[in-house]
């Protein structure tokens, strides 16, 4: 602390960061939590309207997480352990869903399996009711197993191949090695992966909203209370309930993450190959991955075909009219808004997170652990809750002069802070403290040292933060659904509206345009980094 007092500029910068975090992360959330008041909570709890969506949410979470994790595990195991062919192809397919708004899976699902779906009706002549629990379960399983796969693959690949080689060398077979070495070592990582998947699923707003029908879960309940009935108090209470679930899962995940350190004892990943698995297992992995990749391709292929045909699936004549529709008039504005808002938000978020990460990681002032927690907190906050927070806190008459676009950008900046922050902290761990100190001992103030020395070395973290934030901003629906105005509509909002209007051609063309933006960002990033894609997670 004394060292801060000797450098007023640094102290000022720190106070500014703390002020921004308090205003844009803490304040809006507190507003939502306290909005109902004790009386509000009492009558809300007594009213009992929360019980059904609460139970539904837990039901959906349990079912979808289980199935998504099982499928994700198969894919991850195949990618990390087997010697199957086509791995680059499978890797590419596995990334695709991360670059799209998760709720478009629901749209595709309706096109494929709905009452007029090409498979249900077209192939089998059935008109099943797919809305409700089964629909949500199916859609979320498909939408989120790629996320589970990324998380699980990450956890599995952290286990040191040398230990597996050692176990094989001591006479254990492949299955025994997996059971007695790999699994115990990756258990905390796997647990964290499962919990993170569960958070994505319980927070998911778009899929249940599109396919849930009468089956409401907490996020859709909160949305409907506000948009349908203007019942703000109950909505705040419902979303607080949702926040509690997400927060509990997140805190459990942090605990597990903490216990993960022993996996990475060896420091850098070793280049030693994993011991081979039997050929038959590789073949099983290959078939499993092929089926799963096929499902992903079918989901996104349907969207693409629908975007390029007159009236999918009835009239399959090729046309560009949906894309013309997408780029003209207010739709074009929405696309441009998406690009501008997301770019600005990603840039601001990544830079702010980098600086905050440096302040926390390299600082020696008291309270830095609190700031550290607040900076990763948004990762636990459901998008719908975050949106309601900004709606409550900043939708005030005296703030009317603030442009709504700015508000959307700010919400994207601060909801995504954990992404850039964690990238920055990971990057800083690779840079020895003595590098900062060298600059200081040569006469540079700490801020100057940050600018001259640390910042240029963290280019990689900055790029990861930027791209991941951009992708998440481009694909989010729940955060912006309460903040947009006709002039500040973004692509995900339009997709959502068009699906509700049953304008499938327009909706799917919009989706393709939206995903293209995310893909373009990632391709540029890959070209710049030429390294391994360290993509974080996007969610709806």
């Amino acid at each position, binding site marked *: 602390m004394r060292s801060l007092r000797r450098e007023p500029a640094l102290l000022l910068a720190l106070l500014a960061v703390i002020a921004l975090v308090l205003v844009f992360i803490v304040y809006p959330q507190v507003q939502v939590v306290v909005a109902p008041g004790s009386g509000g909570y009492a009558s809300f709890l007594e009213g009992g309207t929360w019980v059904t969506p609460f139970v539904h949410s837990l039901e959906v979470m349990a079912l979808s997480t289980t199935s998504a994790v099982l499928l994700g595990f198969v894919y991850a195991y195949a990618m990390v352990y087997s010697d199957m062919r086509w791995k680059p192809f499978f890797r590419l397919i596995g990334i695709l869903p991360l670059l799209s708004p998760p709720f478009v899976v629901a749209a595709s699902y309706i096109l494929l399996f709905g009452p007029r779906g090409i498979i249900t009706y077209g192939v089998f002549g059935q008109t099943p009711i797919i809305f409700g629990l089964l629909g949500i379960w199916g859609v979320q399983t498909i939408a989120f197993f790629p996320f589970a796969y990324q998380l699980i693959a990450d956890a599995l690949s952290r286990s040191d191949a040398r230990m597996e080689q050692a176990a094989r060398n001591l006479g254990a077979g492949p299955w025994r090695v997996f059971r007695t070495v790999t699994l115990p070592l990756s258990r905390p990582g796997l647990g964290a992966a499962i919990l993170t998947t569960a958070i994505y699923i319980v927070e998911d707003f778009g899929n249940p909203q599109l396919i849930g029908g009468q089956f409401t879960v907490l996020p859709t309940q909160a949305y409907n209370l506000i948009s349908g009935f203007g019942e703000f108090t109950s909505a705040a209470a419902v979303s607080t309930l949702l926040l509690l679930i997400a927060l509990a899962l997140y805190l459990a995940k942090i605990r597990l993450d903490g216990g993960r350190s022993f996996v990475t004892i060896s420091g850098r990943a070793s280049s030693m190959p994993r011991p081979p698995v039997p050929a038959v297992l590789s073949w099983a992995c290959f078939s499993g991955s092929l089926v799963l990749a096929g499902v992903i391709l079918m989901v996104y292929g349907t969207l693409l075909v629908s975007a390029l045909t007159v009236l999918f699936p009835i009239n399959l004549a090729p046309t560009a009219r949906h894309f013309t529709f997408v780029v003209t008039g207010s739709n074009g504005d929405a696309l441009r808004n998406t690009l501008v808002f997301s770019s600005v938000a990603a840039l601001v978020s990544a830079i702010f997170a980098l600086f905050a990460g440096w302040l926390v990681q390299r600082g020696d002032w008291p309270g830095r652990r609190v700031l550290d927690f607040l900076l990763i907190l948004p990762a636990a906050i459901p998008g719908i809750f975050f949106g309601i927070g900004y709606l409550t806190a900043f939708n005030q008459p005296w703030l009317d002069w603030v442009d709504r676009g700015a508000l959307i950008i700010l919400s994207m900046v601060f909801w995504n802070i954990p992404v850039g922050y964690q990238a920055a902290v990971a990057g800083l761990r690779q840079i020895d403290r003595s590098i900062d100190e060298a600059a200081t001992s040569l006469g*540079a103030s700490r801020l*100057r040292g940050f600018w001259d020395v640390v910042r240029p070395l963290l280019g990689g973290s900055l790029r990861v933060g930027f791209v991941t934030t951009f992708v998440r901003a481009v694909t989010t629906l729940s955060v912006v659904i309460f903040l947009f105005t006709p002039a500040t509509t973004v692509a995900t909002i339009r997709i959502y509206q068009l699906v509700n209007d049953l304008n499938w051609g327009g909706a799917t063309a919009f989706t393709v345009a939206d995903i293209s933006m995310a893909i373009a960002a990632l391709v540029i990033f890959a070209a710049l980094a030429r390294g391994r894609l360290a993509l974080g997670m996007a969610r709806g």
Partner: protein
Amino acid sequence: MHLRVSHITKRFGSAAAVDDVSFDVPKGSFATLLGPSGCGKTTTLRMIAGFYEPDAGDIEIGGRRVNDLPAHRRGTAMVFQDYALFPHMTVYDNVAYGLRVAGRPRPERDKRVNDTLTFVGLGGMGGRWPNQLSGGQQQRVAVARALVIEPQVLLLDEPLSNLDAKLREQLRVELRILQRRLGMTFVYVTHDQDEALSLSDWIAVMNAGKVEQAGTPWEIYYHPRTAFLADFVGAVNLVPARVESVGDGSVTVSFGPHRASVRRPVDVSLSTGQEVRLCMRPESFTIAPAGASANGLALSGTIARRAFLGDTMRYWVKVDDREWIVDQPDPGATETLDGAVLLSLRPERVHVIAES
């Protein structure tokens, strides 16, 4: 005094890493903090640099208290163990960094950087990147980068420990010559007693957060005040003994059946009957086959083990149930000994430590 450290203390949690340490370093001298890892030497150095805040005590440089100055205003450039070169800057830019921060004009900067690079033997290498240099070259860049800003005190934190033995010795010599020529004040931290002995004008040996003893390398090596010190700065025979009588400049001690009159250490009070330890360096002995004539103190024993170290032959000799370490220089010049031997030692080579 150019650098004065008075009563500084630093705690991490409840443990004191540095506990009431004081010392003075005159201008232009080479001072070394020597000690095992965890003794507080690096913490002390980092407090001088301004990277740690002392919990108590003062640090003065050039007569000015610097406690309240941030690290970048102290005029204490530091050379780090891992060099800490800026990987995204060329050698030239690394060395020019401090001058650029100070806002020195370009022509002056160019001249000083090039002069310094030549000075450390890296003339013409300014365009290279750090990762294109060998470890020794990187360390020279690190030194040049710190020297070029002409700091009041140059701090060096184990700068040679990442180099291989041969290069370490070479750079050690260069560093000493450099310091003499510049007349700059160096504070050097190391755990390697050879480095400390060969480089320094003055050494402070630290242990458990305290300075055990400070003095010239000679004093530290031959007249250690504690058993820890004697053992830390080289191989030693530490033999429990008893004071029989205290004379004017000498003291008579007995150990086992032996009795000797040895030099009385200054600044230490000894009384008759006191339990002490005798400190005898292995190279102070003469070893000869049993039956040879002794010169001074004579001990008969048998060789238990030996190790050929190249420049010396080290013997472990059993005398009265106790193993003594004895070094014989230039082993090629004599026959390798075995069996019963006679050790002899001149009494003035025995140092008394008032600690049992």
